[in-house]
Structures are given as C-alpha cells and as structure tokens.
C-alpha cells in the first residue's frame, strides 16, 4: 500500500474511532514492559518496550568543572542514538536532526521539571560538580520513540546510584548506595492528529500519515515542562487545549509504571 492509500485506510478507520492495530484512539499500546539494569556497568539503566517499539537508556556519572554561569549546580547531558540496527530508515553517522530533536525534547522535560536536584550535585562550588550523562539508544522503532525514551530515561535516572570517588577522581565500576537526588518525574505523552481526530502513542504507520504531532512532558502536579510540535501541518488552539487534557490523563496512567 502506498502512503496515500495507507493514509486513507488509517483515517477512514480512525473516523470510526478504530485504529489500524485495534486500539481505541486514546490507548497506549499494551503491555508497557520495563526492565531495569540493562547494563551492570551503567550507574542506572532501563529498557522500555511499548508494543514493538523498544529503547534502552543508561546513565553514566563523572565529576568535572561546573559551567561558569551555574557554579553550584551539577551538569546534565542527554544524548540519543537512532541506531541503524533499529530501523531500515536509520543510517550510521553522527546524530541527525531527528536524533537531536529526540535528545533535546527528553532533556527539556528532565531539566525544566527540576527532576534532578542539581544543587545537591555540587561537590565544591565553582570547582567540582557531578555530571550526569544520560544516553538513549533505540533498539526497534515502531513509532513514538519520544514517549518510550522519556519513560526509559526517567526509570534509568530513578535507579541511578552514585559511583565512589577518591579526591577528584571517580572510581569507575565501584558504586555507593547513594541515589541520585531527585525531586520529580516528568513523563511525556505524544499526541498525533490525523484528519480531524486526535490519537495518542502513534505507531510507525500512524506517524507516517500524521498531519501534526504534539509531545507534552507533564510532571506530578500537572505542570507542563516541555512541548514539541512536529509534523507538517498546524494545530488549532482548541486542539492544543484538548491535547493538554489528554496528556495530563495519560501521563497519570504512565506514572503507574514508576515504582
């Protein structure tokens, strides 16, 4: 089926409130599987499987100099690799715009929600702080890498323990029992518009025919910490309002997966 045919098929189903994989419009794929400690060499790591989409996220810690404008705050670096292993459409090479967007959307949700208590990551003001390296790797892309990555990232951070240090050196491979100082947990819900309907957790086929996309990162008290509009068409304010309400409800559901 070509893209126009697929689009007609998907949207004619959606107009009857049915999705190509049998879900209703506002259902996430089920079950959502979460596995911890993907790598024992990570300070924290997690695997998330949503339908057939699979991603892993891992945290490595180091110590180093803070940025001059935030001398008493730890540093967060988020990277994402769209592995060519995970899709015939991904190619080897430095992160492309899609990978960069993914990393930055996840970064904003975590950073702006204040999930990590960066002040507590200061070891010596202006000289030495903890640096958190969060890296996301896609294993199988069947759509909605953003929500799967956001969930994997939050789970990995929540399971992160600090490595031992000696003076200004990290003893890699040796861990303390001390957890990363965390305050909140932002979760991301991605909504897609196809013709006049809104759906959540788009599969790859749905992403291919979507008109517009909105990813919303929501933390515990329903604060919105990050937004990212994607897709080739615009969205109305009315739709955005609806999408916020749905994202708030759906991230509450996703939150049940955090222990």
């Amino acid at each position, binding site marked *: 089926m070509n893209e126009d045919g697929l689009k007609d098929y998907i949207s004619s189903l959606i107009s009857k409130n049915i999705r190509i994989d049998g879900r209703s419009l506002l259902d996430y794929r089920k079950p959502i599987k979460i596995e911890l400690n*993907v*790598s*024992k*060499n*990570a*300070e924290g*790591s997690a695997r998330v499987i949503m339908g*057939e989409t*699979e991603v*892993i996220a*891992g*945290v*490595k810690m*180091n110590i180093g100099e803070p940025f001059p404008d935030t001398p008493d705050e730890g540093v967060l670096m988020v*990277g994402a*690799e769209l*592995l*060519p*292993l*995970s*899709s*015939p459409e991904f190619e*080897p090479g*430095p992160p492309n715009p899609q990978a960069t967007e993914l990393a930055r959307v996840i970064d904003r949700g975590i950073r702006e929600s204040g999930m990590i208590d960066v002040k507590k990551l200061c070891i010596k003001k202006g000289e030495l702080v903890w640096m958190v*390296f969060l*890296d996301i*790797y896609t*294993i*199988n*892309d*069947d759509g909605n890498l953003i929500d799967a990555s956001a969930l994997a990232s939050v789970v990995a951070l929540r399971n992160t323990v600090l490595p031992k240090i000696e003076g200004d050196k990290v003893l*890699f*491979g040796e861990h303390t029992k001390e957890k990363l100082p965390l305050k909140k947990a932002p979760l991301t819900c991605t909504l897609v518009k196809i013709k006049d309907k809104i759906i959540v957790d788009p599969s790859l086929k749905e992403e291919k025919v979507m008109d517009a996309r909105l990813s919303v990162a929501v933390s515990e008290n329903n604060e919105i910490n990050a937004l990212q509009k994607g897709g080739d068409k615009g969205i109305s304010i009315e739709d955005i309002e609806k999408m916020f309400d749905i994202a708030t409800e759906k991230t509450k559901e996703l939150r049940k997966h955090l222990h």
Partner: protein
Amino acid sequence: MYSKRFDNRKLDETREIEAKVGIIKRADGSAYFRIGDTKVIAAVYGPRELYPVFLQNPEKGLLRCVYDMTSFSVTDRKRPGPNRRSIEISLVTEKSLLPALDLSQFPNTVIDIFIEVIQADAGTRCAGICAAAMALADAGIPMKDLVAAISVGKVGDKIVLDLNKDEEDYEEGSTDMPVAIIGNTEEITLLQLDGDMNKEEILEALRLAKKGCSEIHKIQKKALKEKYMSVKENE
C-alpha cells in the same frame, strides 16, 4: 602464579552462554548473544539496494559491518560514535564473516550488519561475531555454516578459554587472542593477538578455541531451531 580462575571455571571452560534470534522486529535478521556478563545484539538488513550507485558490484553483493558500544556498556563512559577501536573491530568482524558467505547471488546489493554491545565484560568482538552470524542465518542469507568466535589466551602462566574482564586485567600479565571459526570447514576467519605468547602456547590456545567454538556452534544452531520450530508449531 594463576592457579585458580577468578570465577572458579576450569581452564577450558567457557562462561555461561545464552543465545536468541529474531529479537528486533524491523530487522531482516537479528540475534542476542550473551557470554558471561558480555551482552551483545546484532541486526541484519538486506540484501538491499546499495547507494551511491558507484559502490555497486554487478558480480557480487557487498557486506558492511558496524560494531558499536553503548556509552554505558563499560565502566568508564564511552563517547557515542565510532572510534579507532570500533572501526578496526568492524573491519575484522566483516572479514571473519565474509568467508562463510556467497554473495555472488546478490549482485549490486549490500548486506548491512549492525552490532551493539549492551554490557561489556571482555570478549565483545567475539560475542558480536557470534550474534552477527546468527542474525545472518535468521535473515536467510545462504552460508557455508555458522561462524563462532571466542577469545583464548594466557593469564599468568595458564592457557585459558574465554577470558573475562578480571582475567584480561590480570596484574601479572595477560594475553588475549580472539579467534573465529566456520563450523563445518573449520577455517579460522579471525585471528588477533594482544600480548605475549610463544608458538606452542598459541597452538595450544587454538585447540582450546576450536573446542569453545564447537560448543558455541551447537548453541547458535539450537537458538535458530528454537525460533523456526516454534514458527512451524504455530502454523
């Protein structure tokens, strides 16, 4: 003197091995291979069209291999992206698999193999080759036989099979020799050495490698059969 192995194995004993195929749905073939605490996945895409067109060979298909480690697969964070080590490993991996394949059936195309190390505890290139060979078979690429690989070497004064990280880092000296062998022809398709061994020691180590690879071949075949037997039962 290295009298007892760190993990109490016999000198000619491999770590625990686990193998599985068909783990990545979007790939044409895929596999998971774990040996001890080393965990690797591999995916095969192709034969598919090769671009740019000038790379196409009307006589035979091209095999391309990328070996990569996740940043958190090792204790000291690895920067994402290729480095000199990973580029060399990609090359020798390609060369270790190529002799098992007949790519003349796939002119003008490419078969891409992507290997990702999820958790590293020595022997990652060998685990990568084991996973890649299974992924090729899972993708239905005709092969002479599966390729298995394992590291052998010398830890202290002992010749051992399948060095783990503690053994690779052994203070009193450690030599690592990764070996890959095609199952039925017993051709050696990967041979590297990093350390210090004499001719007799190397030949002794090669005998161990042959034993280790033949055990791995059985496990690889079993994993492939498990997938395709269960497909048959479902029909």
